[in-house]
């Protein structure tokens, strides 16, 4: 369990007033991360995800508010790795030390037996590479080493900051499986990403932030439903007017699309197909469309993106 209460991080001097140079990287965040679930921590680049995680781990000092891990501030824990493991930056390892020596150093600080070092090396599949110097590791191997470090103390809470960055497809699938397994064992898993599609396949619950503020804290289903996005059917026909008329008579909402198709809300493909048959309209294409989480995410965070592309709408369509 991670409890974040009114967490705020301000850079720059002075109170946040007009004309002040201060920037609020994290602004009054409050949320819980619960055990047994994978919680996706989502936001555009620069939204404050890493800063929040650093404050949860006691690395950065909050300007206001607090964060508790297993009921205590992380920086007061004597054996923190037995409570929470984290991977923030896979590159932050001394390049001249072997992966195994790195893990031995870490294990020593928390009184973890060396036997456990070899266990996690096996668990993440680092194998014989563990005895080589980190200098020669690929990004994927460094991610595995970082995850091994996080798992070392067999903690009930895990935080991963963009763990899939730079991984190949196998690596991504492995992380996804591992994270699911950890949550199924009843652990608390917080997983940050700026990639919505990744979250859709991995997370059970979402905490979405933008410009340091909380935008959504809900299950994936709730986030999708909250956006009022039911089923939609896209249909292509040469007899647009006939079909549109028939659909409207059935009290269905119909929108023409830019490429001449019709978008029908709240109906199934069967219904639309049957109606087309009744009015004798030829159907060239008929497909149910689900609003992707990605689209919802873009809609939600659209106003809070710090470095905005000139037209977000174009991105949504593409």
């Amino acid at each position, binding site marked *: 369990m991670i409890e974040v209460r009114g967490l705020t991080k301000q850079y720059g001097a002075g109170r946040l007033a007009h004309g002040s140079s201060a920037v609020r990287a994290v602004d009054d965040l409050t949320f819980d991360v619960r055990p047994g679930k994978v919680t996706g921590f989502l936001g555009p680049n620069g939204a404050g995800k890493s800063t929040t995680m650093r404050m949860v781990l006691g690395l950065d000092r909050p300007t206001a508010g607090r964060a508790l891990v297993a009921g205590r501030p992380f*920086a007061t824990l004597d*054996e923190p790795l037995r409570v929470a493991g984290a991977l923030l930056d896979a590159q932050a390892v001394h390049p001249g030390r072997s992966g195994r020596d790195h893990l031995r150093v870490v294990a020593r600080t928390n009184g973890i037996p060396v036997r456990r070092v070899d266990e996690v090396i096996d668990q993440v599949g680092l194998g014989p590479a563990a005895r080589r110097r980190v200098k020669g590791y690929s990004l994927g191997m460094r991610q595995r080493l970082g995850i091994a470090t996080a798992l070392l103390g067999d903690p009930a809470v895990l935080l991963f900051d963009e763990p899939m960055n730079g991984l190949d497809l196998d690596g991504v699938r492995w992380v996804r499986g591992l994270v699911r397994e950890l949550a199924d064992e*009843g652990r608390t898993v917080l997983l940050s990403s700026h990639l919505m599609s990744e979250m859709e396949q991995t997370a059970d619950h979402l905490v979405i932030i933008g410009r340091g503020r909380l935008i959504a804290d809900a299950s994936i289903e709730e986030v999708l439903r909250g956006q009022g996005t039911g089923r939609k059917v896209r249909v292509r026909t040469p007899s647009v007017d006939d079909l549109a008329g028939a659909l409207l008579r059935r009290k269905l909402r119909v929108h023409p699309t830019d490429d001449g198709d019709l978008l029908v809300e709240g109906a199934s493909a069967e219904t639309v197909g049957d109606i087309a048959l009744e009015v004798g309209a030829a159907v060239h294409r008929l497909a149910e469309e689900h609003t992707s989480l990605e689209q919802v995410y873009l809609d939600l965070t659209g106003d809070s993106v710090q470095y905005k592309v000139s037209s977000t709408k174009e991105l949504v369509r593409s």
Partner: protein
Amino acid sequence: MTAVAVQGPGTVPLLTRAASAEWLRLRSVRSTWWCLLAAAAAVLGIGVGTALDEADMAEASGSTASAVLAGEYGLMIGQFALLVLVLLAVTQEYASGSIGPTLQWTPRRGVLLTARVTVPVLVATVAGVLLAVAADVVAVVVEPSLTFSGGDLADSVGGIAAVLLAGGALAVGTGLLLRSTAGALAAVFLLQLVLPALLPAFGVRWMADLGELLPGSAAIWTLLGEPEMSAGQATTLLVGWSAAALAAGGWSLLRRDAG
């Protein structure tokens, strides 16, 4: 799995663990061994060579020289390889960003600070003392006319240990404060070697006076008996500078964001 409040083992065992981890951290990178090798070459090479010269000069004037000059002259230069070792132990983590992870497994910063000051400084001091004694022994074996008494050795070893403890503390403190290898290295070299040697050379009174306030001047006095100052002054300088550096560096680690 419910979160269990983990009862800690207490501060003393934590310190022991952190220190043991620091020791393993030092041992498991090559830069430590390169620094020790460089220190050995400097202390033995320069130290023994200079002691032999001193022996010749003493012989020419009908007196004798002490073998402990070998360790003292050698350390004058060799200390810098040891200070680099100490400094890298601190600043390397800021260069690689691994101070963040380190604070994840040792989040109690006071514990980390204590271990991080103690272990590298002690390693450098012990290594320096052993190398100096080795240089003395080599010198007296090569040139038996050198005198080698227990009293001289005890004095010499005490001085060398004091210089290395103070220099090491200065290096750790500067490293923690500046968080940069290049910056801290430059600062330590300037304070410990360059400015104390350079400032008096201008022949300007206030520059020479300023030079005598630097930690390097006290270190040189402790090793070589120059420039003119009292033991009290030297002690004050060594202790004062190390304490100030440790206070500033400690503040940086304890109070600032991890970096």
